[in-house]
């Protein structure tokens, strides 16, 4: 179903930010809106957005492909994105990520068996003084988790698991 039908208020609010003749500018916020629902952007949603903004589906797909926070494939409910760039690595981020992989029994890029968490390595997140750190990208948006240890991360995953069960 079209976004204009499912989320009329949000779509209107997003479009109001840009000049009426420049509605293509809404493509990024609209993609976030779609992705919030399913964790990725499917082909039908790209067609819908393309139609709404009078651009081609290829143009929408090129945005999804270019920017790392958009995904065209389903993954875990939460993407746990650990920064291992230079300043974080100087504060032990590589060891943190290795130990976390060991504890979860998955490699970077893989998803836990229950489908809850996909572990990813990402580029600098502007939290260099609070490493090791990561962000979670999920249905509730993007959240930062700073000054982390493996133990605290496992506790966070347990809490997400609990919340997930309650929703179901």
């Amino acid at each position, binding site marked *: 179903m079209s976004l204009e039908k499912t989320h009329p208020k949000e779509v209107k609010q997003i479009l109001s930010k840009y000049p009426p003749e*420049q509605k293509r500018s809404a493509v990024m916020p609209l993609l976030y809106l779609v992705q919030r629902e399913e964790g990725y952007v499917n082909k039908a949603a790209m067609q819908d957005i393309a139609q709404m*903004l009078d651009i081609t589906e290829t143009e929408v797909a090129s945005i999804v492909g270019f*920017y*790392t926070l958009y995904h065209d494939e389903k993954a875990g409910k939460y993407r746990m994105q650990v920064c291992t760039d230079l300043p974080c690595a*100087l*504060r032990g981020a590589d060891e943190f990520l290795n130990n976390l992989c060991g504890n979860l029994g998955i490699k970077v890029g893989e998803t836990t068996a229950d489908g809850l968490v996909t572990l990813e390595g990402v580029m*600098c997140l502007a939290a260099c003084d609070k490493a090791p750190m990561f962000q979670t990208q999920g249905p509730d948006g*993007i959240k*930062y988790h700073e000054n982390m240890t493996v133990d605290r991360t496992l506790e966070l995953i347990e809490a997400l698991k609990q919340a997930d069960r309650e929703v179901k």
Partner: protein
Amino acid sequence: MAHVLLRHRDIPDINKLDVYKKNGGIDAFKKSVTKMQPNEVTDVVKNSGLRGRGGAGFPTGMKWSFIDNKNWPHYVVANADESEPGTFKDREIMESNPFQFLEGLAIASYAVGATAAYVYLRGEFWQVAAFLDEKIAEMEKAGYLGDNLFGTEYSLKIFTHLGAGAYICGEETALLESIEGKRGQPRVRPPFPPSFGLYGKPTIINNVETFTNVPPIITNGADWYKSMGTADSAGVKLFSLSGRVRRPGNYELPFGKTFRELIYECGGGVQEGRPVKAIMPAGASSSLIVVDDKVLDTPMDYATVRTLGADLGSASVIVIDDTVSVDWIINKTIHFFKHESCGKCTPCREGNYWMQTITHRIHSGEGKQEVVDLLLYVAKQMQGICLCALGEFATMAVVTGIERFPQDFKKVVKA
């Protein structure tokens, strides 16, 4: 001394509008709109010596004076893309002292006649954007944003726009493409944004920290601002200190303090009391400085840091101790730039691919000395021919790393 930018460290609740107002907030914007002509505002900023805090250090008032008054409407855009490894200052400003930043953005908008301004935040700042949206709504409700401000004909709206994970969008023309709903790839310049910017209209783009300097400059005057810092670099600067120091974080200092003061007095020195081996003063895109006592006692301003063969840039000081090998460092920085190259121009796209491949070989002990020479050759071929600064940035640590720390590469190459 009280903070000029990180005022929340002196006044904890300054992120509440009434507290900000009680402490002189909004006075500068009101004074600008009701008592000053737009060009007078620009002149004060010009005379203050304020230079852009995003890294390039271009004189802010001069940039504003370049706006093309024959082509309308005008836009002002705040660059809150903050993606340079080692930089985390704009986030603290927006999270903790948001109104001073927004007021600075509003004053700039008035100065160049813009009635709409955008804050372009990196997508990872999703929570910060939601917070800024609340603060913008509070300002609208209080009558500090919207139509006919302070009973004049001037009107202004501020909008946030989220990127989605692309370092290149910190380059100002890539940022504009991104707001326009396109892939974030830099434009060929000239024309520059003050004549051809957002939607092809005259646009002024400044960094978050730059805007945050503007309200106190309008309130206290250009001479007050110039009384801080050095002749070359007026005022105060946020230094993002990271790496192997005991107390990493943001520190607000006048220009002209030394690396020693930053690292030892602010940062508490190096972990385990080890010596500083190298400094990258401008994040991952920085040249590597070989550190000795003379370097530690060098004043940090734009001109003086240049005498060390590096740029101060956004003042994201990464401290490296003697346990770290430079081949490991460039392996990290090249991994970053290879991932972030936008692919538009050939030297950056191909050069980063090859630099990464060769660096991997060296770092994993599979390369001979001639491979190190090849890496240097590839990096130097990229210099001066890329479409934007990203390609240039990628080569800085590689070239200075190999030239200034040859012993680190001798240790890892095969005989």
